């Protein structure tokens, strides 16, 4: 009984403290998939954003006000994302929104932010089209920003690994049927064409498919030396396990989702050696990264001491700091002023992925450039640096001219 009363008192006190802040807090939307196959990305992203927000709040918030996150599950479904965006804009009246792990959801939802002149920071979704939906001259100002490595960067690195590093000439593409998979497949085909290579097989599958025999047999019969993938964790694991079943083992090189915990765990030994581009690998090679990893593990205590999706967590964390810095510079929560501040950020933001030095301009809404992205590989159930030379302490800053 005693404990119960204590709990009630604590809860009331907590509620009271919340309502004090709620009066003049800065509301920031966090939209992501917290359920389903994409949830490792969504949950890691949310936890990273929460961590950043609580650090900022502990230091007194922004403009003397506390950040209040309004978290909503978009379930990786386009229509749900649209509902969430309308709720965040019209009911919660958020200052800005961070999030979106799924390109399709992002493309379907951000129209409403653009119309309401509220900035969106995509911190996980990678589709190349994400930041290119509202370009001049039709739209004078674009409210869509990104802190993740887009698919044209990723596909270029995947192709570079397969064609230049491993010297393969025959590759097969396996992509899922979602916007993410199919847009990624287009980018991969473009990147291969730039090297005068045509994939020997281009196969497709649905999310939740349980049998990959047909797709893998086609790739095998075409003589593929490697499989390039664009899909999410569970189906990637089915591909790795399907190869084991067919007794055919070629390297998997694919988009960054090969680092998801639900791929690594479900593929087990079949997933070892898979290569993927990463903006962040859970290794404390810089002081900032060490501080971030320690704080994340201490706060959320993920199983096996492994962040379910380290890239999402780091990008979620960074997006919150970039946004907070922009609001501080704008001196206001007005969407137009925040966008202008984002496009001309004076203060350097020390993030986990990189130190953001003028991350955006009016016409460039991509914070990540190809020079910041490294190759990771799966080893003993963890993602590690594929090349030891990438493991240095040097923070690679934005280089808009970096060659693909």
């Amino acid at each position, binding site marked *: 009984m005693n404990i119960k009363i204590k709990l009630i008192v604590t809860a009331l006190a907590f509620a009271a403290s919340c309502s004090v802040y709620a009066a003049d807090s800065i509301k920031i939307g966090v939209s992501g998939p*917290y359920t389903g196959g994409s*949830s490792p990305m969504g949950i890691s992203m949310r936890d990273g954003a929460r961590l950043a927000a609580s650090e900022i709040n502990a230091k007194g918030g922004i403009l003397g006000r506390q950040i209040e996150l309004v978290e909503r599950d978009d379930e990786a479904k386009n229509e749900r994302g649209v509902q969430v965006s309308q709720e965040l804009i019209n009911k919660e009246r958020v200052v800005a929104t961070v999030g979106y792990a799924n390109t399709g959801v992002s493309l379907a939802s951000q129209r409403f932010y653009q119309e309401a002149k509220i900035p969106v920071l995509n911190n996980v979704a990678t589709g190349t089209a994400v930041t290119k939906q509202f370009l001049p001259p039709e739209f004078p100002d674009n409210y869509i920003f990104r802190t993740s490595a887009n698919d044209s960067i990723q596909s270029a690195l995947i192709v570079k690994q397969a064609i230049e590093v491993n010297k393969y000439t025959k590759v097969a593409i396996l992509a899922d049927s979602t916007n993410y998979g199919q847009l990624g497949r287009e980018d991969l085909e473009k990147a291969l064409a730039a090297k005068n290579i045509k994939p020997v097989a281009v196969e497709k599958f649905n999310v*939740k498919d*349980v*049998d990959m025999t*047909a797709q893998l047999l*086609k790739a095998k019969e075409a003589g593929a030396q490697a499989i390039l993938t664009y899909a999410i964790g569970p189906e990637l694991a089915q591909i790795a396990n399907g190869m084991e079943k*067919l007794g055919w083992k070629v390297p998997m090189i694919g988009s960054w989702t090969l680092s998801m915990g*639900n791929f690594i765990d*479900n593929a087990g030994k079949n997933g070892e050696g898979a290569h993927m581009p990463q903006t962040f690998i859970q290794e404390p090679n810089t002081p900032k990264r060490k501080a971030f990893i320690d704080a994340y593990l201490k706060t959320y205590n993920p199983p096996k001491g492994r962040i379910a999706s380290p890239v999402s967590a780091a990008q979620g964390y960074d997006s919150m700091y970039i946004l907070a810095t922009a609001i501080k510079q704008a001196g206001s929560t007005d969407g137009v002023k925040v966008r202008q501040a984002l496009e001309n950020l004076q203060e350097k933001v020390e993030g986990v992925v990189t130190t953001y030095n003028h991350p955006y301009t009016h016409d460039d809404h991509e914070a990540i450039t190809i020079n910041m992205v490294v190759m990771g590989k799966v080893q003993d159930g963890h993602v590690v640096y594929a090349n030891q030379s990438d493991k240095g302490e040097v923070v690679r800053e934005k280089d808009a001219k970096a060659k693909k």
Partner: protein
Amino acid sequence: MEILAQLVVSGIALGMIYALIAFGYQLTFATSGTLNFGQGEALMLGALVGLTLVGHMNYWLMLPLVLVFGALQGIFVERVGVLPALKTKSEFGWIMTTISLAIIFKNVAENVWGHDDITFPSPLPTAPLQFFGIRVLPMEILVVVGALAIMLAVEMFNRKSIYGKAVVATSNDRDAAGLMGINTGVVITFSYALSSMTAAFAGVLIAPLTLTGSTMGVVLGLKAFSVAIIGGLNSGMGVIVGGLILGVVETTTGYYISTGYKDVPGLLLLLLVLAIKPSGLFGKSVIKKV
């Protein structure tokens, strides 16, 4: 030739999964004229309960417990969702109630077991066996054998035992069976128990091959439903043949035409069957007298 054989073998394994779930639809339709649209969720619950139990015991010991759980779950669905609709002679009430129960089960599973897909430890070696160049996973053989075994067991029970005869009588003519002193209400409840039991069994059979998670049943439940329609809702032979057709067509279309179109022939077949022989390939057409 070897490739075709490999595709057919994979298709058979896939098709037997569909057939086993479709068999569950058939059981309840026979006795009560109703279907449990939560069949996919019954499968998912069975797999997840199995996953929890398998942490404490051997896979084979876990099987009977999962069967009991499945039966109880089926009884629950019948009592809460279907019985009220049957009592009020509601034509379509049970459709909504079984669908909503399915959604509730899915949400409960998300809260209990989380949102992520989990690996189910395989009771058999995961290395494939090789026959004449065709590779089969031991687990796939178990799925085919297990599915056939449970369908056979249910059929034998219906044909040989006195209780089974009550089930057959009820499915032939519920009113007449009632007049003969058969408690048709109990028979219907029993058929729901059997139906969810086979679904739960299917769940633990396929879980080591697929991944286990709260959303695993949705697509499977839907495909099995089209198998039940293609094969005929009142033919045991029908679901097996229907399942095999759909499974093999899926894998072969994927290879010979395009993996983007692998679900199309199955759906075309469904439309064809509905247009030409609505009672299914093996179904007996029933004339409804009003």
